[in-house]
């Protein structure tokens, strides 16, 4: 009999090699990239969302005149500006830094302060307004200084895309585990496999193989997404995006460790592919609920509900990434969420291995969890 490590590697290798050969994997990768490209490119290409709304802070009368001229020309730049007068340059700087203003015109109209993520057309409209206000030929544009980090809305957008991809990947690959288990049951190949290796090795190899494939596909999608986004000018390839990709990869692994064994058990309970939908329904609902709950965290990453949901399984794998990308999370909370998810996954893997071993050879008809659990107990007793 071959060692456990070797058995797991062989099973995992087969899962990866055979699935890479399936056209469906490449179709799904292509579709995800297309959708991602659509989300990133289409809004600007089609001019969705109408004029870009922005706030211009002004300090003093000269600056206010610049803003007035900019507002007069705003249609040409496809922007919609609202003006806020403030008393000092420091106050204007604070507005920009906090994301409450996109651009500030400094005292005397001598310079601009633009937020890091300020829209180019907004800055252009203000520059044009300044030229109009100063009059006489074409005076040179004002010097621009950027201020502050990105606004929350940019990070929210990234977090939203991240959680949608994470949700799709966790659910999709969970289903792959379930249908892979059912395939072996339905084709009876499982009997041949289990005459060579143990059920635990088969389960572990399958889950690890499919998980690695999911990770690889995510990496590919992330890479394409960043390249397309950067090319379309929709995405500054900056720290936030890199963090988002890293967070998604990490939490895919943690979430997959948590959910995949449950999917394998569900698959082991039914004899035919047709019954996968119904037997995995409870799992789908849990993942879907976690997905929707993560939207709450998107709006307010610091709320008590979001904090609690981001710590405990089964919602942590989708809520914590959103908080990580959209807001700031204390290190101890991240550590706790990872520890709890890993603990839950470890417990679930143990239970799953036991149930899977007892259920996977019952090829005739659907079996209940309770019956399988009892049978697993008897098997363990018989081996002693």
């Amino acid at each position, binding site marked *: *009999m*071959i060692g456990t490590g070797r058995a797991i590697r062989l099973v995992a290798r087969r899962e990866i090699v*055979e699935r890479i050969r399936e056209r469906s994997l490449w179709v799904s990768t292509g579709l995800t990239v297309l959708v991602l490209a659509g989300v990133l490119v289409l809004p600007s290409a089609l001019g969705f969302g109408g004029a870009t709304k922005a706030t211009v802070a002004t300090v003093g009368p000269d600056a206010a005149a610049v803003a007035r001229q900019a507002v007069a020309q705003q249609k040409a730049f496809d922007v919609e500006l609202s003006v806020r007068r403030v008393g000092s340059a420091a106050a204007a700087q604070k507005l920009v830094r906090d994301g409450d203003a996109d651009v500030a015109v400094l005292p005397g109209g001598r310079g601009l302060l633009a937020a890091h993520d300020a829209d180019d057309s907004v800055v252009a409209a203000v520059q044009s307004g300044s030229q109009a206000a100063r009059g006489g030929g074409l005076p040179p544009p004002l010097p621009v200084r950027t201020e502050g980090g990105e606004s929350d809305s940019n990070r929210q957008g990234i977090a939203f895309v991240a959680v949608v991809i994470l949700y799709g990947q966790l659910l999709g690959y969970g289903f792959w585990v379930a249908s892979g288990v059912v395939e072996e049951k339905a084709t009876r190949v*499982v009997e041949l496999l289990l*005459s060579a290796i143990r059920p635990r090795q088969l389960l572990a190899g399958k889950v690890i193989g499919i998980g690695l494939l999911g990770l690889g596909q995510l990496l590919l999608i992330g890479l394409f997404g960043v390249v397309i986004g950067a090319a379309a000018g929709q995405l500054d390839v900056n720290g936030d995006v890199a963090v988002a990709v890293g967070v998604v990869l990490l939490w895919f692994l943690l979430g997959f460790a948590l959910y995949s064994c449950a999917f394998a058990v569900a698959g082991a309970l039914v004899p035919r592919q047709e019954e996968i939908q119904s037997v995995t329904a409870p799992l789908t609902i849990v993942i879907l609920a976690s997905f929707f709950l993560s939207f709450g965290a998107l709006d307010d990453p610091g709320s008590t509900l979001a904090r609690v949901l981001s710590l405990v399984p089964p919602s942590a794998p989708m809520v914590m990434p959103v908080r990580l990308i959209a807001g700031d999370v204390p290190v101890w909370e991240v550590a706790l969420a990872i520890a709890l998810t890993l603990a839950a996954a470890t417990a679930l893997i143990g239970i799953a291995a036991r149930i899977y071993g007892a259920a996977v*050879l019952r090829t005739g008809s659907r079996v209940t969890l309770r019956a399988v659990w009892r049978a697993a107990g008897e098997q363990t007793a*018989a081996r002693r």
Partner: protein
Amino acid sequence: MRIVLGVLEPDGGTVRWKGRPLDPATRARFGYMPEERGLYPKMRVADQIVHFARLHGVEASEARAAAARWLDRLGLAEVADRRTETLSLGNQQRAQLGAALVHDPELLVLDEPFSGLDPVGVDVLSEVLRDRARAGVPVVFSSHQLELVERLCDAVAIVRDGRVVASGRVAELRAQRGARRWRVEVAGARPDWVSAVPSVLVAHTDGDAVVVELAEDADEQALLDAARRAGRVRRFAPVEPTLADLFREVVA
């Protein structure tokens, strides 16, 4: 068979191999063909057989060589790179056999290996099994094709309701049963001569001959005497029971 391969837990008793209870390591050196045929439908035939060889502990390069050898032997070389599901059922059956044989097992356990095979496949498989047996590998298989079993097997066991009701070499089983059927050919006799013999249970004519079944304690010499009284005895021979006859008798 499933208990031997560890796929099913026994209700009681132990399975021993060379005097020692079976463990997973020993089982992994067995070759198995389940009654419920099963291979990965979408996997290529050669890849599949290599995969099973490796799961049984054969190194990669040797697994590929062994798979190629068996595919050739089983007549599957031309379809080696096709997906298993695209093969005819007979060829899928051969591939299944390849998966059972590829790791050079020290015991072969095959559940109904001949069912679903065409005559050529039956010949190929018979030759492979004989060959394995000659090489010292015990081959245990189940079958309802009793003529084939009779031709192929050294020993048989007849199972009824999960219990062995007869076992041993076919010749021994025949001997135990005793020859109670005789084929008698008598020239110039009246057709009903045999009905006058007292211990005859059943008789039917078969061409020029009469096939007679005698009661258990009857003496065939009495039958011979009666035949000689009826006419010239051309033939008087015991009818060897076939395995099918033995089967009918012990199962009935």
